[in-house]
């Protein structure tokens, strides 16, 4: 069983990696790029939000930090395209560092209070970037285009984002089965009990938080290069933070598969609706989807099907 699953995953990866060679339209490449990106964001958010139950509503901050750090580095040092893509890794590390500094005091706060402090944090970061000219200010930052045809540049970014998604999901896979992941789950079910069982809760919470900021930081860097122009309003948008949480919880928080399913469904539905329906009507249907799913599957899609399977 395990073997077949590995083979299936390998085939899927090869198929996804081969997709740009079929010369699809740029639209599909862009769509898949954002799909991969949301899978990365939702899965990494899951490390802290899903497993420990600390619902961070400020994850767009890490995404934005990665985006602005990459853009700033690329425009200041006049990096080549290849180096710009690589620069997103130190940018992710910067996001992780910020998470370490912020996480230390904030992760002592529990429940909805933690959520609110992360919202405040995201605003503080956004407004700081907007107000300080050097960091981008109100005008945003332009990046240089790649000096190659659009389709080729889109294909390259597609493959890079795919790689990032595979790495993120591998880490998530490991985490789901490790002692570390078990410790995080223990925090979610009862933090006091976890502590008396000699689980170093404070330490692993911060580790999970840092890890969950690292990958969105890299994704932000790639996204900046993908857009070639970034503005604080775009990358720090609170709707991104909310969307990440919804994707993960919609599919089922604290599971490996949940955020993937949530991200895929919501991205596809959102895209499909905005193509086929009038904007407001599309949003209304989108909103109704949340209501219907929560009423019938209050604990996420994964949980719903697991129960069905076992009964």
């Amino acid at each position: 069983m395990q073997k077949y699953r590995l083979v299936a995953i390998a085939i899927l990866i090869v198929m996804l990696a081969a997709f740009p060679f079929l010369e699809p339209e740029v639209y599909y490449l862009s769509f898949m790029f954002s799909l991969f990106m949301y899978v990365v964001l939702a899965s990494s958010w899951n490390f802290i939000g899903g497993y420990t139950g600390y619902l961070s509503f400020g994850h767009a901050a890490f995404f934005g930090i990665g985006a602005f750090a990459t853009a700033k580095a690329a425009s200041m040092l006049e990096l080549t395209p290849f180096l710009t893509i690589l620069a997103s890794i130190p940018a992710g590390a910067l996001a992780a560092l910020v998470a370490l500094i912020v996480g230390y005091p904030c992760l002592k706060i529990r429940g909805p209070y933690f959520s609110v402090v992360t919202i405040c944090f995201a605003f503080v970061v956004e407004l700081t970037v907007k107000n300080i000219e050097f960091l981008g200010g109100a005008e945003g930052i332009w990046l240089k285009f790649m000096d190659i045809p659009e389709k080729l540049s889109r294909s390259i970014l597609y493959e890079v984002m795919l790689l990032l998604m595979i790495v993120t999901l591998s880490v998530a896979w490991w985490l789901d089965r490790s002692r570390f992941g078990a410790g995080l789950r223990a925090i979610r079910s009862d933090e006091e009990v976890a502590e008396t069982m000699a689980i170093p809760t404070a330490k692993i919470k911060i580790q999970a938080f840092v890890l969950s900021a690292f990958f969105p930081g890299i994704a932000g860097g790639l996204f900046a290069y993908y857009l070639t122009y970034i503005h604080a309003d775009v990358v720090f948008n609170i709707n991104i933070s909310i969307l990440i949480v919804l994707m993960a919880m919609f599919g089922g928080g604290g599971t490996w598969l949940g955020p993937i399913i949530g991200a895929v469904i919501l991205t596809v539905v959102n895209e499909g609706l905005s193509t086929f329906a009038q904007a407001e009507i599309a949003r209304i249907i989108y909103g109704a989807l949340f209501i219907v799913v929560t009423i019938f599957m209050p604990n996420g899609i994964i949980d719903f099907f697991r129960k069905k399977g076992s009964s």
Partner: protein
Amino acid sequence: MDSVLIIQSLISGIMMGMVYALLGVGFSLTWGVMHVIHISHAAFGLLGAYLAYSLLQYFGVDPVVSAAVSVPLLFLVACGVYQLLIRPITKAKEVIVASMILTFGLAIILENVMVLIWKADPRVLTPTYASGALIVGPFYFQYPHLVGFSLSIVGITAIYLFLKKTYTGMAVRAAWQQPEATQLYGVNLYRISMITFALAVSTAGAGGISLALLNSFEPHSHNLWLIYLFLVVIVGGVGNVIGTAMAGLIIGVITGLSMAFLPYQWVNLVTFGLLMIFLIFRPHGLFKQGV
């Protein structure tokens, strides 16, 4: 710095803060009593503002008078929303998460329905006294601001008296402290939850009208309102009416003072930064006990 200007902006900050407190009071109650985080709370407030706008525009009804119609109307709507949507999810493993996702969907629907009906342009409430102002010495207060402010004071007082003096209000408080014991005393928790929810939504409506008297609004405004009322509720302590009012004052003073001393674009940064620090040191609000 001109002291008149400082006091002027301090007072307008406080007025704003009290209006946010009225918006927040209901949010705080649903959170405290029902463990429902009602993301569409501010959207219902905005709906109240738009109803007042239309009644004023087409029938010339003053916003304060129309509140007497739209607030009970929102109460009824909210009862329906509770029965149809909120009640089914109270059995979820994590009610807070489920309620957030569900009401987030509701907020999207309300927002876009409002776009369809009233278009996306910013609106202002312009009652007959809109251009008038009360002048006291060097200070001056626009009448709509005073009316909005008074409306919010009346609203908060009404909710406070309801909780302290009426039988139903006491049952709500009891449900917040000891849900099981309350049931043993023959209180129907579902009925209490429905009343709490409906009451919360109608205060949001009143709060929305007050806020519309102070500021312009558009269908997306509820997102920003929501963030502010979150802040007011957290600082005041969840489920605490007096605490929420005090928090409204405090946040009003902070924004008022930063308005006076800082360039405009730094005001929000200071507000959110201070709140973040505040949360780290006093995560459960300034005032301990609930309801």
